[in-house]
């Protein structure tokens, strides 16, 4: 018994060491990004790069906030984040529809959904813009958010995951007289917490970084997002790297918070829902 335990321990140690080595390699650029945001411009492109700023400064952050129309950009970004969670919900519904119902032509429709992943976005940019223009959605938040509301990747992921939910469970609920939407909200969503957490993280990142549509749809800067605001700091020839790294570092903080918040659902997941 004790030998089994020590073997277990060694395994755990090996896993930890592997993770640490990999983790250092993986996180180097990230660390450089953060530390660069505290460097003066003349230190930033030094070779070899310094991991810790020699003359740390907050000037980049001060410049960042004085240069950015911060309040407006943040508000717009948050609205987009909120609305894209509605889209997440649509995707979950669609994923469930594909996973747990049978209807004629289901697979064909699903292939159609998948097909939307396969064309580079730039090719459809102008047609989408013209469509939104016809719909009178130029210079509106709706025009910015609508095209990205449904995503094939997300529908596919929900479908894959929800397909693993035992159908007996749903049938049992139906026999108890639960309606389809009741089942979805009260049974499926709680069971699917891990995948909602994953999708929540991805949705948040995408919305938080949204760049192209806010720029293209907006006719004035009142609809710009944080990403658009940050990219305004870039010059045609000259790049102020330190300022950009401060911007990037600032953009990453909320993502880390969201990640830590959601990841506990990825870890808990099924084990607490009592699903066998």
């Amino acid at each position, binding site marked *: 018994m004790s030998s089994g335990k020590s073997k277990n321990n060694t395994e755990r140690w090996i896993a930890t060491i592997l993770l640490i080595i990999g983790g250092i390699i993986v996180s180097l650029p990230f660390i450089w990004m953060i530390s660069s945001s505290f460097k003066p*411009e*003349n230190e930033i*492109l*030094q*070779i070899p790069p310094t991991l810790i700023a020699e003359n740390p400064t907050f000037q980049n952050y001060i410049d960042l906030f004085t*240069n950015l129309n911060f309040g407006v950009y943040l508000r717009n970004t948050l*609205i987009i984040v909120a*609305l894209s969670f*509605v889209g997440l919900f649509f995707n979950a519904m669609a994923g469930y529809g594909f996973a747990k119902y049978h209807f004629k032509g289901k697979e064909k429709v699903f292939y159609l959904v998948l097909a939307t992943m396969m064309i580079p976005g*730039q090719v459809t*940019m*102008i047609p989408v*813009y*013209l469509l939104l*223009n016809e719909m*009178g*959605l*130029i*210079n*509106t*938040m*709706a*025009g910015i*958010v*609508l095209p990205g509301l449904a995503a094939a990747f997300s529908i596919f992921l929900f479908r894959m995951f929800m397909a693993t939910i035992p159908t007996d469970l749903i049938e049992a609920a139906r026999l108890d*007289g*639960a*309606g*389809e*939407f*009741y089942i979805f909200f009260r049974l499926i969503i709680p069971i699917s917490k891990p995948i909602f957490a994953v999708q929540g993280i991805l949705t948040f990142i995408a919305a938080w970084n949204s*760049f*192209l549509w806010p*720029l*293209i749809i*907006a*006719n*004035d*800067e*009142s609809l710009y997002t944080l990403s*658009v605001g940050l*990219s*305004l*700091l*870039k*010059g*045609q*020839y*000259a790049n102020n790297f330190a300022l950009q790294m401060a911007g990037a570092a600032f953009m990453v903080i909320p993502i880390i918070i969201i990640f830590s918040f959601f990841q506990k659902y990825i870890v808990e997941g099924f084990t607490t829902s009592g699903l066998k």
Partner: protein
Amino acid sequence: MKKKSIVYPSILAVALSGVLAGCGGGESGGSDDNTLTVWAMGEEGKLLNEMTAGYEEAHPDVNVKVQAIPWESAYDKLLTAVASGNGPDVLQLGTTWVAEFADAGALLDLSEHIEEYPEFDPENYFDGAQTSMKYDDQIVGIPWYVETRTMYYRTDLLEEVGYSEPPANWDELKDAASKLSESGEDVYGLDIDLNDQITPFIFAWQNGFEFDAENPNFTSPEFKGALEYYTSYFKEGISTTSEGIDIVQAFKDGQKPMFFSGPWMINILNDQAPDLEGKWAVAPMPAQESNVSSIGGANFSVFHNSEKVDEALDFISYMNEVDTQLEWMEKSNTLPSRLEAWEDPKLADDEMYSVFGEQLENTKGAPPIKEWEKIAQELLATIERINIGGADLDEELEKFNEKADSLIE
């Protein structure tokens, strides 16, 4: 229960459209009667906002709205504007994009207005900049600010190899660069940016090459000679094809003591290499037959379907007054396009800027044809095949000439 199933999505849909409509808000398109919309790029767009007050004071009935557009996506934004006609009134356009957008009919022909505004007289601007004003026989833009390429060099290091004055012609440049290269390991006497589209043409122009759109003559001795000179730097190891380190640091360390660049580099060097002060300078391009350099920068154009042409022209005219241009220069560190502005002591007496002023007298703009971008890219690919792929220069130029010929139709 069953009823609920339809109720849910409908509530959701109603709520969503409410939210979306609520967020849309405000005016659509900025088509108010007295708003003049201006698109400007990147940092300049943000700074331009601070410049409009002066104009609005003189024109109390006009409200200028500047929308800053990031450089990296400006093209996307312009495309959608061209496709839908939802453009601004006034548009900042990089000189290399003028031909293409003029060809598409996106820019208003200003010919009939040119005489109403003394500021628009082509004689006010550098010769090279006048190229970018015209497309076919139309006037499609007014130069706003300009840039040209000059030579940046380390005075102290050149002194060490016997050049107390910067190299003034091709032979001296080659000689100085080779001596610098030999002065230490990993030193590359002259840094040439292989991704820069205009540098090969600068050499060609200096060698007496004239581009003829009717009949591309890239096999002419002038062009060939220039490319032989250009590629010899790489063949002889005076310049490097590998990325190396960032030019500022390499300049600081003395590993790349000479390079060509534009006026923006002055500030970068001052900011990023403050301890180098006094050890570097700029000089006009070394000459072969001439010391022509390129001219670029940005123009103001009026979008083709603007309903406020007069206001737009007034605004451009105001921005191009000599005093406004000088104010703009101080704000944005870009160089004024007006010849007269260069008489101001702020430029004429500045040891760096005055070199640019001198060089600007002798510049050429990229030929105003819409295929230029493709030709320039093709040339870079050709040079890459010679430099890295070891291809034969004569053969490659033959092929390039044919390709260019087929591109221009």
